[in-house]
């Protein structure tokens, strides 16, 4: 049973894990510099630059996006009462990837470059795509003032398929160079960001995440079905709508920043649910911290495995996450009926 004490202890434990992951992430990279150097002998200016302008922003972005994807995953799993839902299931990622891909084909336009700083073109377009998809899917899935979860799911699936087709179309008419950029964008890659922007990203992720944390007990009640939750005193319509919008926002931000990084939002919540139980008051914050740590480590692998070349982090999360997930399902799944 969950108590405030257990929640605090678990969160502290996962915070420590995240800090360790961040330290590892900062210590390893293609440039020859590590945290230990900083302690032992001080750093040259060049090394400081690598550490504070490249690696620190990079691991912070990875942590924020990993947290966002995991908590979106937990929330959508709670909303759909299905442990196999992931952040991309409701279709918003489709809109985001269309936006990102369109941006990549337009990025060389001088008019655009004058309007938006170049590193922001793809994220802004992708986020606009995510918002567009969110509004569209919400409109379509609202029937008689009620958000029907089943319809959301179907609309999302169809929207994703439609997005994929549209992206294939763009790819088929794109130049070879654009095609390369598109493929790598879609595979998922954490980007460095200027430190000033990371604060903004943190706020944009932490506000929806905190709002979702606050619904933990209502999510527990929702596991007994919409009607069951209503009869336990949950305003189910409001909960569903908020969950969809907040989770979709987080997903949209993550895809806008880093493309489609798979498995984080599925494996992390699932693993933690098997380990710590299904109580969402614990699962939500712990998944945020655990997902953050997972993506930081996966991104570190992506940066270092084939250095100086970089693997798409989505490839790493899928290669690590996929087999691990199957193993987990084989070992623990049978006993829970999941």
């Amino acid at each position, binding site marked *: *049973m969950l108590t*405030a004490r257990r929640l605090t202890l678990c969160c502290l434990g996962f915070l420590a894990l995240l800090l360790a992951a961040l330290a590892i992430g900062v210590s390893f990279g293609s440039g020859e510099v590590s945290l230990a150097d900083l302690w032992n002998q001080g750093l040259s200016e060049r090394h400081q630059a690598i550490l504070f302008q490249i690696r620190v922003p990079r691991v912070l972005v990875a942590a924020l996006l990993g947290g966002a994807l995991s908590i979106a995953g937990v929330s959508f799993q709670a909303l759909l009462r299905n442990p196999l839902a992931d952040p991309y299931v409701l279709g918003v990622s489709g809109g985001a990837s269309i936006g990102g891909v369109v941006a990549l084909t337009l990025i060389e336009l001088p008019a655009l470059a004058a309007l938006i700083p170049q590193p922001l073109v793809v994220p802004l377009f992708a986020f606009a795509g995510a918002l567009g998809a969110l509004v569209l899917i919400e409109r379509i899935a609202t029937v008689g003032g009620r958000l029907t979860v089943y319809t959301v799911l179907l609309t999302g699936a169809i929207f994703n398929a439609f997005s994929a087709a549209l992206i294939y179309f763009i790819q088929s008419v794109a130049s070879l160079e654009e095609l390369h950029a598109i493929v790598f964008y879609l595979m998922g890659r954490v980007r460095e960001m200027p430190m000033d922007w990371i604060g903004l990203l943190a706020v944009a992720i932490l506000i929806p995440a905190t709002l979702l944390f606050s619904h933990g007990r209502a999510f527990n009640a929702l596991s007994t079905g919409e*009607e069951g939750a209503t009869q336990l005193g949950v305003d189910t319509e409001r909960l569903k709508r908020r969950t969809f919008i907040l989770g979709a926002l987080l997903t949209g931000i993550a895809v806008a920043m880093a493309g489609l990084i798979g498995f984080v939002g599925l494996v992390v919540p699932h693993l933690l649910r098997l380990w710590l139980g299904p109580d969402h008051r614990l699962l939500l914050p712990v998944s945020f911290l655990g997902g953050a740590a997972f993506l930081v480590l996966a991104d570190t692998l992506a940066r270092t495995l084939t250095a100086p070349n970089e693997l798409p982090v989505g490839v790493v999360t899928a290669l690590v996450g996929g087999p691990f997930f199957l193993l987990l399902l084989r070992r623990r799944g049978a006993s829970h009926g999941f």
Partner: protein
Amino acid sequence: MASDAIEVGGLSFAYGNRPALEGIDLTVAPGEIVGLIGPNGSGKSTLIRVVSGALAGYNGRVRVTGLDVATTSQRDLARAVAVVPQEPRFGFPFTVLEIVLMGRHPHLAGLAFESEADVGLAREALERCGAAEFADRPIHELSAGERQRVVFARALTQQPRVLLLDEPASFLDIRHQVELYDLVRQQAREQDVAVLSVLHDLNLAAEYCDRIVLLREGRVAASGPTDEVFTYANLTGVFETEVYVDTNTLTGKLLVLPLSGRAQRKLRED
């Protein structure tokens, strides 16, 4: 006169174009057990769902402990009304104790955790429902009958003034049926809880219900004290089948038995 715990007046409800309830009038006083009887599809479960606040868009008046169901928040409603559904659903492998503690949800402030007192209530309810031994087991490992007792314990933990039961005994063996309804009666008599219960078992209804509301095709076919409503004419009329009606010589209550097709043919030949 003390106001009724459940007041339903001129209630109509339709699923889309298909009417499910038409012109229902019904009251349940605190401490009273009212049985909702009728064939499949007669609107019993729909009526329970409307009174619980789970179905919006009805016409007519529905009040529970004086609260208008249409305008009261779900949270305030859930502090007054607990429901034991026909087929409770469980999406994630919560333990039995965690499920029962969900009954405290409407009583807890925003981010609050269950207090010692809440846990005490949950354990006591589990004890009374004969489910204390399951407390730490995942709900999925329990049989349908065991789950039903857990859900009943959750309803008790909600400390409601009104209990809505939708065939809570359908998966229970006879001993647990009786134990469950003994508990229901105890809640009604000692805590003044108003009970509205759907029942398929007419003999259980005869034993435990103070009054009966007989539904047929979404309308009230008959209502009144159990002995007056449970007549051969009413039952055969509503259920459209022959029944054997007698008196239980031990309790003096009505005894109703369905008759098989063969027995009915034999009856007609005689």
